[in-house]
């Protein structure tokens, strides 16, 4: 049997079992929107897929049933027993057809016009009750005609047996059994460890070699058992090429599907949870995202559209991205629809960034498609994507640039996944870091440990050209401090765009570990991505570096983040200077104590009013003054801005780059004649102009730029 058909049957049979119950439940509880949504989705999935498989009868029935459900969903129709009966009839017909399909692999011939007529009466504008006179007899006859052929039933039962003979290289095993195996393997490891310890006491023990052997086999067994739960993410992709191809053919588009990272392994439950959402996403990309070859050429793009699937591990998560180079999603249109549908007030919608607005796509029933096609466009899909992903603890996000395409990023937790980890120690305790988030390790001497740059309470490490905020693992976790001299290791971590360092006492090992979820009482702590059991049976917490750094107050140097440099009661604040470039190799400095924050601000977010540059910042307008005429706001680039606060007023000085923070006693050697400059001093070996902050403050207030 065709794999696609087989999957379809397995999936549909599962859905239908629930469907009967749901429809009946709906009759009892007609106002239950989530129930209605779930029924709608089940039918929608069947309809969507049978289009590809060439099952016109099934498609017509499910399409009509779906249309009735749509009216129920919008509230045009009430879930009264009569409607419910007709929907149940449609479900019965769908079941019958599916059973025949399983038996003969072809759709049975049959006439559904009566059923369609029954359903369509609910679609009329004012839905006259039973406008078509259908006697109970006629319905009975119709049902009779639908009765299954005897061999369809037995075929339904033997489908699984069929599969077994077709694919003898794999068998179905219950997850419960796999879990039991996993636990047993764990127990075996513990017993092995005891034996190892006993035999190591006596070097001449005759048990030595066999125990070594046992140890090796145990380790392999444990590894193999762990792997039984893992699947390459590619197994959730297998039906996508066909789906894309069919959509392309049907719509006259040319689409290329590129799949990267198919071998990325994750827990089978996650692979399963990913399957439906992926199908929906790819279908959406192919149907709505990619334009026709003509439209693409007109837009100056290659005629062949491209959809890229990419899976990889990042910062202890599995990321699956679906990217297309189609027309993207028009944020303004989404905004308008969101307002029309009452999801958000007009004012709120306009205050939201495009990125936030695009998230409405994930609301149930939200669709920007102007027409309903049988492939997609009814607004189911993205909400299914989100709810399926969130059910397994993942997150989904969407980025789109109008005209350039759309990227949907699914982030799945590493729970249950095997990850490489760095085993570290801090104050006598052992912890694991997901290696994916570790960039590099730096050994710190005692001397270096004592010599971090400090802004307020944040310690900064000079990593080549970068200043990286640093926290100490032991402090961040509240472990009692202990005196220890000598070296430590700085673990430089990356989470998203943010980079930061975490100081640990020692790096012990690297290990492949199985991540286990932490119990609900510990989850509230928030710094842990899970826990794991080491080879010797010890339970070790897996640190979530980003959460830890956030908790410890290390601000990261990511673009939207802020390096807070709140005024610090240092002994001699004037001695700390922030040094920055102002273009043309000129260097200037300001006393760090006067600086409120450092920001990266995109040129595109800079607005001009009355010749003054300003940017919306934390809910107010921040005037920007370039530090010199050489500092310009080039579109598409981000600018370093030093933010100053004086009383309730704030302003920003735009500079070309932040260079360094230096501690130096400043001797103004040349008094300046230039306004805005206090004088020139030698700072870090270079002639540096020291800015007069109050001059710029006045400038910003008056508004003349330059």
């Amino acid at each position, binding site marked *: 049997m065709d794999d696609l058909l087989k999957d379809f049957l397995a999936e549909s049979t599962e859905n239908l079992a629930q469907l009967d119950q749901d429809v009946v439940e709906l009759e009892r509880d007609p106002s239950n929107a989530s129930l209605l949504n779930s029924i709608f989705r089940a039918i929608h999935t069947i309809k969507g897929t049978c289009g590809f498989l060439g099952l016109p009868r099934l498609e017509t029935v499910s399409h009509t049933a779906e249309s009735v459900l749509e009216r129920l969903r919008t509230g045009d129709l009430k879930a009264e027993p009569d409607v419910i009966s007709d929907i149940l009839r449609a479900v019965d017909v769908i079941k019958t057809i599916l059973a025949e399909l399983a038996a003969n692999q072809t759709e049975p011939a049959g006439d559904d016009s009566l059923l369609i007529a029954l359903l369509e009466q609910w679609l009329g504008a004012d839905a006259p009750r039973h406008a078509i006179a259908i006697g109970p007899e006629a319905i009975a006859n119709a049902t009779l005609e639908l009765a299954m052929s005897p061999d369809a039933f037995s075929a339904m039962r033997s489908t699984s047996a069929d599969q077994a003979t077709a694919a003898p290289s794999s068998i179905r095993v219950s997850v419960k059994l796999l879990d039991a195996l*996993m*636990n*047993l*393997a*764990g*127990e075996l*490891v*513990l017993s092995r460890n005891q034996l190892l310890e006993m035999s190591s006491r006596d070097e001449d023990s005759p048990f030595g070699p066999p125990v070594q052997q046992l140890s090796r086999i145990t380790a392999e067994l444990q590894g193999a058992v762990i792997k039984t739960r893992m699947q390459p993410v590619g197994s959730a992709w297998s039906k996508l090429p066909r789906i894309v191809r069919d959509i392309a053919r049907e719509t006259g588009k040319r689409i290329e599907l590129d799949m990267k990272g198919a071998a990325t392994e994750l827990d089978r439950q996650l692979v399963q949870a990913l399957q439906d959402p992926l199908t929906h996403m790819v279908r959406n990309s192919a149907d709505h995202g990619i334009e026709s070859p003509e439209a693409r050429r007109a837009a100056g793009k290659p005629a062949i559209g491209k959809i890229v699937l990419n899976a990889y591990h990042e910062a202890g998560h599995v990321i699956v991205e679906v990217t297309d180079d189609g027309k993207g999603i028009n944020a303004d249109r989404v905004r308008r629809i969101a307002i029309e549908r009452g999801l958000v007030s007009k004012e709120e919608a306009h205050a939201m960034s495009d990125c936030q607005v695009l998230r409405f796509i994930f609301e149930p029933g939200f669709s920007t498609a102007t027409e309903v096609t049988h492939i997609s466009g009814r607004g189911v899909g993205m909400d299914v994507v989100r709810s399926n992903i969130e059910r397994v603890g993942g997150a989904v996000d969407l980025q789109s640039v109008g005209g350039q395409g759309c990227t949907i990023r699914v982030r799945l937790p590493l729970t249950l996944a095997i990850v490489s980890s760095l085993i570290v120690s801090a104050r006598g*305790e052992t912890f694991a870091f997901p290696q994916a988030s570790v960039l590099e390790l730096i050994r710190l001497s005692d001397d270096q440990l004592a010599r971090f740059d400090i802004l307020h309470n944040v310690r900064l490490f000079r990593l080549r050209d970068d200043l990286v905020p640093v926290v100490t693992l032991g402090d961040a*976790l*509240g*472990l009692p401090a202990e005196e220890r001299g000598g070296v430590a290791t700085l673990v430089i971590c990356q989470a998203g765009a943010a980079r930061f360092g975490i100081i640990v006492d020692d790096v012990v090992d690297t290990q492949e570990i199985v991540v*286990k*979820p*932490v*119990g*609900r*009482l*510990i989850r*509230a*702590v928030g*710094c*842990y991505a899970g*826990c794991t*059991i080491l080879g010797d*049976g*010890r*339970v*070790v*917490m897996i640190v979530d570096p980003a959460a830890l750094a956030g908790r410890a107050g290390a601000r990261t140097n990511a673009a939207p983040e802020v390096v807070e440099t709140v005024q610090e009661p240092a002994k001699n604040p004037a001695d700390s200077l922030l040094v920055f470039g102002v273009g043309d190799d000129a260097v200037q400095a300001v006393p760090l104590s006067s600086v409120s924050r450092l920001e990266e601000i995109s040129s595109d977010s800079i607005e001009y009013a009355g010749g003054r540059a300003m940017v919306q910042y934390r809910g107010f307008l921040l005037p920007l003054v370039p530090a010199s005429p050489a500092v310009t706001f080039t579109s598409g680039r981000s600018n370093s801005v030093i933010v100053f606060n004086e009383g309730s007023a704030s302003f920003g000085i735009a500079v070309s780059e932040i260079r360094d923070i230096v501690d130096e006693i400043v001797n103004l050697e040349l008094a300046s004649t230039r306004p805005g400059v206090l004088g020139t001093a030698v700072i870090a070996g270079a002639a540096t102009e020291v800015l007069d902050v109050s001059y710029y403050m006045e400038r910003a207030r008056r508004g003349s730029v330059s």
Partner: protein
Amino acid sequence: MTATLAPAGEVVTFRVGEQWFGVDVMDVQEVIGHLRIARVPLAGPGIAGFLNLRGQIVTAIDVHQRLEISRHASDSSMNVVVRDGDELFALVVDEVGDVFAVPPGTLDPAPASLGGAWARACTGVVRMDQGLLAVVDVTRLLNEPNTRP
């Protein structure tokens, strides 16, 4: 507060400090001896850490701390492994006693004068020759509000 027990009316008894407690036998999976507990930094009060029960991670609850009972250096520790929902917890206690069948009608409501953690966790008391047996509800004991940092 009405005292309820499973129909069988049996409790697993354990001692913490000087006090004997009982938990519904249906909530108890097993009793194990001392196991190494991995401390979890920043975990709330009353959480001793994690222990490895044959490859399964179990959250260990420090009953002394949870019920504000002072600890003596001589106390040895045992674990009563209980199930709440689909998660396992280990109650770290000083000593585990017998399974005791509470005779019908002998379970008195918890005294109204109990305060704090006791009032929340204790569902009833049984008068015994040696003293009072405090019957505690596992779910309430685990979900003491002070467990959340």
